[in-house]
């Protein structure tokens, strides 16, 4: 149970308070309802670039980071396809510093050519480090490109093309800020050793005067029809191992079917005792790594199945092995009531450990508020308990058509 209270300021900012007397810190977690899906196709990676610019200081705060450090605090942020999340954690006695900092950068961020130039360089290096230097670093570019043709979900948060970031202009990022960074498009969670009364007082002082300047993001996007046939691409990668990746689109986070698919993926390939791993890594030595997982997200999820091939194995054989086991699993060959009890116990444990962290609780509250169902933060375990074996298999059969996978073959890059 996560205890919380909620109120809305006249300018539209939604505030959630969560008290934790055992903590010595106060966390302010701010979720902006803007992510990579809100970018135009010729300016991808902007939500993430903007996340970097948010640390460049604001009208009344010359250096954001210096001010955080001066208060003994720490901060960070992340961007995904659906939202951008910032958090700051400070010693409880310095809570007001966090209110000052977070409100000022919503109120008037200092976007200037110098900050933009430096952060463009930083993000370009981040792109290279994550996508070009890491094995299978462009995986999500390829997979999303196979799944979507028109939808803005077809590129990952880091951006589709490095040149979009390299060419980002000041007027572009200023327009992005104006459109998306305003109180009504944000959710603030104040968590830790701070009372509700003090939270209300500080919110009133620091946030109430921010004008309601923009529209709430209506989150309407072009949707691609679900693929009905196999889609395929092959590419090279610096990784020395060839690999086969397969992905399907699935139901949204709010749909209980997404939990059923998460369970199905966990049982199919979520650990070293799953059929995918035991059959093809341990017994038949086709892969040296293989797994399945389901990414639950707001609009729709992604079901991923992959194997990294051993020397001498072909991609076609690898794909056949994965699909054969997937089909057997959907047909009910592997899983019993004991498996269901196991996967539910695992999910409950993961949930309890996740909730042990103050920052996780604050982020969870913001996430559920953003999807318009904050009270469901209390029901996650009940949703887990309601998934039966029959429902899980029926959901898998209804959502994962082995003949309609998006399939990606990786080949090791040949030396020139």
């Amino acid at each position: 149970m996560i205890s919380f209270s909620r109120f809305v300021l006249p300018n539209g900012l939604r505030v959630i308070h969560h008290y934790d007397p055992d903590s010595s810190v106060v966390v302010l977690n701010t979720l902006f309802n803007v992510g990579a899906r809100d970018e135009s196709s010729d300016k991808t990676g902007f939500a993430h670039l903007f996340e970097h610019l948010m640390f460049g200081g604001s009208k009344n705060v010359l250096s954001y980071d210096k001010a955080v450090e001066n208060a003994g605090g720490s901060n960070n942020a992340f961007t995904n396809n659906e939202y951008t999340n910032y958090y700051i954690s400070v010693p409880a006695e310095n809570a007001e510093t966090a209110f000052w900092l977070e409100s000022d950068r919503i109120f008037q961020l200092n976007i200037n050519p110098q900050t933009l130039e430096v952060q463009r360089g930083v993000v370009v290096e981040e792109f290279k480090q994550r996508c070009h230097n890491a094995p299978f670093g462009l995986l999500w570019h390829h997979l999303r490109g196979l799944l979507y043709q028109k939808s803005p979900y077809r590129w990952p948060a880091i951006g589709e093309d490095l040149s979009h970031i390299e060419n980002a202009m000041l007027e572009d990022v200023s327009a992005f800020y104006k459109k998306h960074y305003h109180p009504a498009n944000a959710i603030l969670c104040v968590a830790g050793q701070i009372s509700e009364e003090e939270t209300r007082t500080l919110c009133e002082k620091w946030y109430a005067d921010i004008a309601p300047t923009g529209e709430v993001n209506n989150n309407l996007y072009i949707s691609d029809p679900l693929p009905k046939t196999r889609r395929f691409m092959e590419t090279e990668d610096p990784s020395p191992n060839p690999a086969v990746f397969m992905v399907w689109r699935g139901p949204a986070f709010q749909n209980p079917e997404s939990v059923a698919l998460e369970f199905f993926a966990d049982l199919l390939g979520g650990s070293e005792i799953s059929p995918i791993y035991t059959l093809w890594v341990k017994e038949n030595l086709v892969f040296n790594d293989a797994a399945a997982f389901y990414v639950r997200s707001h609009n729709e999820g992604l079901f991923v199945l992959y194997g990294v091939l051993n020397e001498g194995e072909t991609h076609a054989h690898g794909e056949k092995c994965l699909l054969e086991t997937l089909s057997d699993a959907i047909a009910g060959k592997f899983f019993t009531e004991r498996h269901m009890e196991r996967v539910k116990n695992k999910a409950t444990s993961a949930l309890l450990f996740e909730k042990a962290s103050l920052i996780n609780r604050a982020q969870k509250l913001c996430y559920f508020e953003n999807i318009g169902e904050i009270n469901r933060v209390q029901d996650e375990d009940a949703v887990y308990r309601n998934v039966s074996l029959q429902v899980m298999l029926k959901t898998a059969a209804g959502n994962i058509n082995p003949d309609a996978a998006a399939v990606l073959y990786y080949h090791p890059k040949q030396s020139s």
Partner: protein
Amino acid sequence: MTFRLTAPEAKTIKTLSFVPPKEYTMSGGWSLFTSPKRDLGVIKLLFCWPCGTAHKAAPTLARATQTLRLSGNKNLSAEEIQEGFEYWGAAANLDVGLLSSTLVLQTQKQHLEQSLKWLMEQGAEPVFPEKELSVFKQVETASLLRRMQTPRYWSSRLCFEALYGKDSADTRFENPEDIENLRVAELKNWFEKHLRFPAARLFASGDFGDEERAVVESLLGTAAPLKQPASFSQTQNPEFKSNIRHGMEHAQQVSLYMGKRLPRLTIQEMQTASFVNMFLGGFFGSRLMQDLRETQGLTYGVGSGLTPSAHGFTWYINGEMNSQNAEKAAVATREIMLGLTSSPPVGEELEKARRYVSGQLRAGFDGPFSLPAKWQFLLQNNLPESYYATYMDRIWSITTDEISVFADNYLRPDSFTLALAGKLS
């Protein structure tokens, strides 16, 4: 709105506020350290053996033995043992560091008895089946070969090998043949000597009170003395190399790694080193991060740190950047190192670091699972319980002159080895 012009007063943090773990000696002779109970529904039990990869020139044996300790016994297969944990929603996470091996049992409070009993019964007498070792070799070799494609891997490896020699206890880099040469008999022998359950320290945290302690006590059996291997393998003293270059055809960036060996330090020296490191590259406001990333935009991330070695510490600096910027970044890094002696932090810079580090030091004790790792660090390094409190005092008492002298003694750039790996221009 003029109130926004002035920052709210930020108070300084000069004290720590945590309840230290309680140490219990249980009937079987085990020492159990417990954190204050928190009403969470979950528990972590940390078993720690004082023996890691540093105790063997090739680290692979220690790692393989710990990784495979739950991979089968006389009666049950790896899958059956793992299924027993997962059924209760529990997990037994295994890890090996330079100086210790650990097992963390994560479990719901309501399933503590079942999962711990399962661990003690099924993990007591591993047989290290040939099949499991064979799979381990296949998986680990592929994973190693993938890591070997990254510039970061080679810059750090070549730097460490230049500092300590290729076969040193401190050079924790494996080759595919080390993995291939593993034998079941060696794993059994290593387990027998160093990793048996009774010869571990035990830490409990989370929703753990008297009732749970009674459960643990009833299941643990009789303790055995902690077995630290007699000595580390010999550390070599290779001829000093100042510059190493390693070109990689497919890389898109260059990884910069600088390193230097430090001897064993006194407690006060350790605390000073740790604090001086903050100015170099220990946090976002450090000189490296501010100059290379925030001013010049040369890198996504650059940082420095102190990592324990078998005989002291290694001071390192690491970052990834565009190939045209690598030499520029190396020059800037050297200037920053020299600058800590010639223009050491004063005034606002010193005050800001003090405030940041003290705030983070206190925050490090926040959360239900923070204490075991901190106490394990003290015990492993024979440090007193007052270590963290005296570090807080040191943060606030250290002078600019002391920082300058320390940097002059330990941070001269010409005493560091620089390795650049990746797309060299």
